[in-house]
């Protein structure tokens, strides 16, 4: 048996598609919702990775702070050594040619009533290192 395929010639040019506003609105709503969800997902993902990046930076800063603290401690140790009375005494006597004053060379004075006296300020004890 032979088969012949025929194609119907359909002319839809005069067919006018009826616009359905409800349908369009519905589509717009769906698309908007989808976009919003996508945006939220994007923000969540961005925030998540940004947090991880900040954590890296935070740990890096903590490490820097710890190193700075150690350096500070080493420098304080060096300062304490440089301020040793024996060292200063040797410098004063041998390099600068200074000697201790004899008793009569130091003359106490009566201060005027409103005099401001300079005095050594005691060093601050640093807070306990954590």
């Amino acid at each position, binding site marked *: 048996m032979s088969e012949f395929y025929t194609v119907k010639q359909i002319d839809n040019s005069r067919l006018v598609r009826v616009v359905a506003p409800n349908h369009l609105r519905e589509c717009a709503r769906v698309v908007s919702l989808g976009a919003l969800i996508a945006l939220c997902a994007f923000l969540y993902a961005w925030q998540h990775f940004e947090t991880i990046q900040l954590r890296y930076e935070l740990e890096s800063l903590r490490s820097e702070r710890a190193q700075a603290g150690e350096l500070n401690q080493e420098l304080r*140790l060096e300062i304490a050594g440089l301020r040793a009375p024996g060292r200063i005494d040797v410098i004063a006597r041998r390099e600068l040619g200074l000697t201790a004053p004899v008793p009569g060379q130091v*003359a106490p004075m009566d201060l005027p009533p409103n005099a401001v006296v300079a005095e050594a300020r005691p060093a601050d004890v640093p807070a*306990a290192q954590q």
Partner: protein
Amino acid sequence: MRHTTVRFRVPGDQMDLQSPRKRIMIVAALAAIWTAAVFGRLAYLQLYCYSDYYSRAQHQQRLIVDVGASRAEIFDRNLHPLAMSVPVDSAFAVPFEIADPDMVARLIGKVLDVPADDIATRIASSHSFAWIVRKLPPEKAERIAAMNLRGIYFQREGGRFYPKRELAAHVLGYVDIDEKGLGGIEYSLDDAIRSKPGKMLILADAHRRWYDSNDKAPDAGTSVILTLDEKIQYIAEKELAQAIHDTQAKAGTVIVENPNSGELLAVANWPTFNPNAAKDSAPESRVDRAASSLYEPGSVFKIVTLSAAIDQGITTPDEVIDCQNGAIYIAGHRIRDHKSYGNLTVSQVLANSSDVGAIKIGLRLGAPKFYGYISAFGFGQPTGVDLPGESRGKLRRLENWTPVSVGSISMGQEVGVTPLQMTAAVSAIANGGLIVRPHVVREFRRGNQTTEPQESQQPPRRVIRATTAAAMRRMLEGVVLEGTGKKAKLEGYTSAGKTGTAQKYDPDTGRYSTHDLIASFVGFAPISSPAITVYVQLDSPAGAHEGGQVAAPAFRRVAQQVLAYLDVPRDVPVAGEKLRASRAPVANGKGDTLSDMSDFAPMQAPAATADAVPPPVTARPEPVVAPPTVEIAEGDGIPAPNLLGKTVRDATEACLKMGLVPVLVGTGVATEQSPEPGATIRRGNRVTVQFSRGESFVSAAARGKIK
């Protein structure tokens, strides 16, 4: 005829597999199956295998490390650090990672200046972990790290450093490699100073970069603030070293104390050591002689004898004692004075250090009362100082005293004392009769909170009356002005004290040695308002060996500098014609070089051994005559008011009007005062007044109490 069926197919007719719709459906079905497989796998991994993968992830990403805090610091009273901890590197090996241990050992040994065999032995001692060396100096750690040796790693540990080196070494103590205190404050307060490690939970990524951490903070320990002043400590150590050098003594001690509060401003011992290299020092150099060494005080103990007698009213400073031309017999034993004295007043007995005079006074006092006063002065028991290893001294119980004991103890033999006990006893004279516990810890500091030691709550204990103490101060001044302690006289300050030259007991012969002596001087200044008590002891000086010859000058040098440093107002004028200015450069002796003192480098401080001769202090320059300094007077001397017979209120008003500080003892009417009426004193000086009831002024005068 053949029939042909023609069939026309119109779209929409019955479908078959080759139609597009069917293909779509098939694809959709495959997609759905694939999606279901993916979700199923996802569900399997996330739900079924969750715990397994979670634990594996935790194991890979989590690190828990101990976070060590530095050992707390020790400061002097002005918050200058004396002991600090700094992180340092310790090198360790992971032996199974090292391909050529011998080469590694050679390279590291060169840096550390250690035989390569030693390093190789350490590497071979374990398969997975072996210390190479702990707490390296920074430059050596850098050199090893620069070699980039496989299998060699570093770990940070706390290293203890003492930036002032030998300064206050015996008080501070030292620590071992694990920062455990082994002496001094480091030992006695180890629990407080030691820090407790914390823990840190770390999250690391695949590259082992940390991206999160949570830490349980370490407990940093409690900082200790001492009563020591590093400058005064340096003065004491410097003058002690000078005295040791001048006298070639075997050992020595200098103590500087605030007699009113018991705060120890300086505790210097020789031989000394460097706590940075304590393990390299001789054990005898680490002994805190101030607290733990016993000696027979000799003539210094006459202070106790006479204080007890005067306090009991058995004698007075002006009573004349027959010193029997320098010899006395007690229980068959003959005791001789160093000079043949005839009649001496009690003041002169003390000034000239007459043993015979002291023995007679002691015999008059009697053993029970004498023993009571000796115990009250703190002998035979620990002072309670917050240093480890304090000796209680040696005092025989009263029932064990022999007939000769009173005599011996009166002149300072047959009793063992520590330098701290002697200092505390003399401080009681200085402060008006109160025994104050000597202490070296001022306060603790933790963060922003400060607390005082519990022992500081102990109130002082009266041992003699205030007037007795005042009388003793005058008598001790006589020792300096006219007696054996002339070399202790200060410029610009009154001073008082007592010399001592005690024979050491020789265990080989069982007798007192004739050539090994302990020379000492203990005194205070200024007299009217003592600011410091200074104790000097020299063990077995060669050549000149008496306390007045070798210890008194050291007292003078220490006291002069400390009083100037503390800005204590002078109470006697300095003679203008004696003023000199030293402008000559310091002579270049074998003294300290700057290279010894510059650029403190941790763990490089040279060790001090007992055999090392202390660096001689550079020779004092020849003074150059300078024009006298014009001194602006603080106020001329004024005569002490006569307060005898006055009531407490009247006496107080009279003192305050004259700018004097009244020290009032008792109630009623004034019957005694010190200084005496008419004596030259200065504004701000203390006047001690004894009041009593039931005894009129007239009767007190009749009994000779009032002249």
